[in-house]
């Protein structure tokens, strides 16, 4: 990966690109310093991270939600995206619900802040019930129903496919048994739930390995950034020229 070759201009004679690389590299090292233990460098990086992300989130919400989705369509319809002929009066309802959250600042009326929360929880509960039934129950049932002795077009038994299907149904039923709370896990139920927990743990093991591999690739990405983007900039300023390091 080539080193930065931009003109050396900007703050203190450094290009903005190089300043960006240095800020990113120092913050990366500051966060990694937590591996040694809590220290002032980590605290600085943490506070910068939290402060910037909170402020950025607030600014984004103000511009994209409050201004663009509420204020403009309601008070400046000609500036709304897309432009409107008349104010969208119906937006007063979500606007008022949002304002009710601020009633928490007035102890006498702070109970009003429960209304928007109740509205959101009720709305999403209603929306999610059909979705959960569709994806977590019906779709899964459909995928699980398969013959344990399938045959191909020529009438030959597909033993391996049959074994896979058998494993699938045994795994599902035993895992359901593990999550059955109305009976103690003894006797038949105990046996089924033990098999179920084995299935769960094998699945979790596979997931663990998969995710760790993805995390390692993130670490490699950071180390590549430090080695190939940040270190060469040190070379530039020591007079070794672009690409050095």
């Amino acid at each position, binding site marked *: 990966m080539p080193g930065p070759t931009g003109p050396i201009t900007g703050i203190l004679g450094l290009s903005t690109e190089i300043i960006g690389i240095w800020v990113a590299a120092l913050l990366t090292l500051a966060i990694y310093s*937590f591996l040694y*233990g*809590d220290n002032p460098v*980590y*605290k600085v*990086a*943490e506070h910068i*991270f*939290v402060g*910037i*992300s*909170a402020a*950025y*989130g607030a600014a984004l919400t103000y511009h994209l939600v409050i201004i663009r989705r509420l204020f403009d369509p309601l008070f400046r319809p000609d500036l709304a995206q897309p432009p409107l*002929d008349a104010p969208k009066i119906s937006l007063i309802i979500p606007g008022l619900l949002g304002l009710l*959250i601020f009633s*928490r600042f007035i102890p006498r009326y702070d109970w009003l*802040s*429960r209304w928007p*929360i109740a509205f*959101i*929880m009720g*709305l*999403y509960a209603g929306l*999610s*019930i*059909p979705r959960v*039934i*569709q*994806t977590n129950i*019906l*779709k899964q*049932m*459909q995928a*699980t*129903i*398969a*013959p*344990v*002795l399938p*045959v191909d077009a020529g009438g030959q038994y597909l033993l391996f496919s049959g074994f896979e*299907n058998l494993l699938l*149904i045994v795994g*599902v*039923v035993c895992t*359901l*048994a593990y*999550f*059955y*709370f*109305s*009976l*103690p896990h003894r006797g038949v139920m105990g046996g089924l739930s033990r098999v179920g927990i084995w299935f*769960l743990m094998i*699945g*979790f093991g596979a*997931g*663990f390995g998969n*995710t760790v591999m993805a*995390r390692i690739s993130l670490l490699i990405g950071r180390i590549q950034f430090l080695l190939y983007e940040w270190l060469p900039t040190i070379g530039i300023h020591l007079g070794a020229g672009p690409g050095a390091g």
Partner: protein
Amino acid sequence: MTSRLPLKTIRCLLLAAAAWCLLVGSAQAQQMAGDEFSAPVQLRVQDDEEDKSGTRLVVEWEMRQDAERVAGFVLQGYRVYAAELGEELVPVEVVDGAQRTKAVVRDLWPGTDYDIQISAVYLPAGEKWATDLKDPTRITAGGAVEALSAAVGPYQPVAAWYDVAETNVLAVALVYSMIVLLCFHFASRRDMYIRPIPGLQAVNDAIGRATEMGRPMLFVSGLSGISDIATIAAMLILGHIARRAAAYETPIIVPCQDPLVMTAEREIVHQAYIEAGKPDAYEPQNIYYITDSQFGYTSAVDGIMVREKPAANFFMGYFYAEALILAETGNMTGAIQIAGTDADTQLPFFITACDYTLMGEELYAASAYLSRSPLLMAQLKGQDYGKVLLAAGLLVGVTLATLAVFTPKLQPWLEKLLTWLQI
């Protein structure tokens, strides 16, 4: 005479030929000038029957057979324009391909009148079709010429009151509701058994440990919003922990990633302190918003764990990639850790780094287990009986599928069952 007659005839023929050429030429020129870039014709717009929410219209049109190549230009596709009745038409869809004469206009409002217009998009020969990545309705290919049809309308997308295809969802919801109502009926009359869940039995031990050590407890309710079922389950557990914390006067720190979750959790903890008879001990400043940035929040919670040194950490709710970072840091500080999530990708990390882990359904069962409230117990029982029905249905389905391999008569029944389950 003999020489003049042919000459006259020739003159006449020449005149006739010239007149014919003039007529044909002008007709061709007229055709070139008027129909150089043909626009789509015979627009047909109708409600999308497959869309029961009433947000889509289907548009079909026709093009002249000879319209594909015109004076160095090639017909490459179409743009669909739509607008509410009386408003300026704006592009809403592009169709790549001259032969494709059908488009679906999406994201409309049910029961609203719309005007529709189609433009044929011609590009210079050799130019490739290209649209803007950010605004896919904007054609970025150079030299594009559009031939607009006449606008047609008004047309309304129609929403259906009842979607027949989702009858299966209604049936499952009704059966489950009936089971829960019956369970509630019985739960209010007699005690119901719930098997011990180790992770939940450890909750009280963890609170006791924090109290004995004189150190606070940390409660993280996941990184999803207030609408998530896991967050709601986490908040119910928080209520129980806060009641115990209030009784023992053990501080509980609740950093939040969502402002609405923070508001709800303050209410829950406040209520718990009132119920415990210690409203004055409630400290709202211990339940606070940090940031909605995933790793900004994680770094802050890590900092809290190493500086405040809570004796017990509770990670309940929905988590993403930060699960392992949080659990590892908590493990490093020596706190007893109890996690609960329905995020199957993060469960392995909690299992490896925490003392106890509530997996999936156990998190939902926690509130009933801890509170023993008849309503929540009835819900849990209803879920259990639902699982029995589910397992029975699966066994019947697999048996039917296996028997259908040997008995073709059963094949239609199997297909009926699979079709019924189809979404």
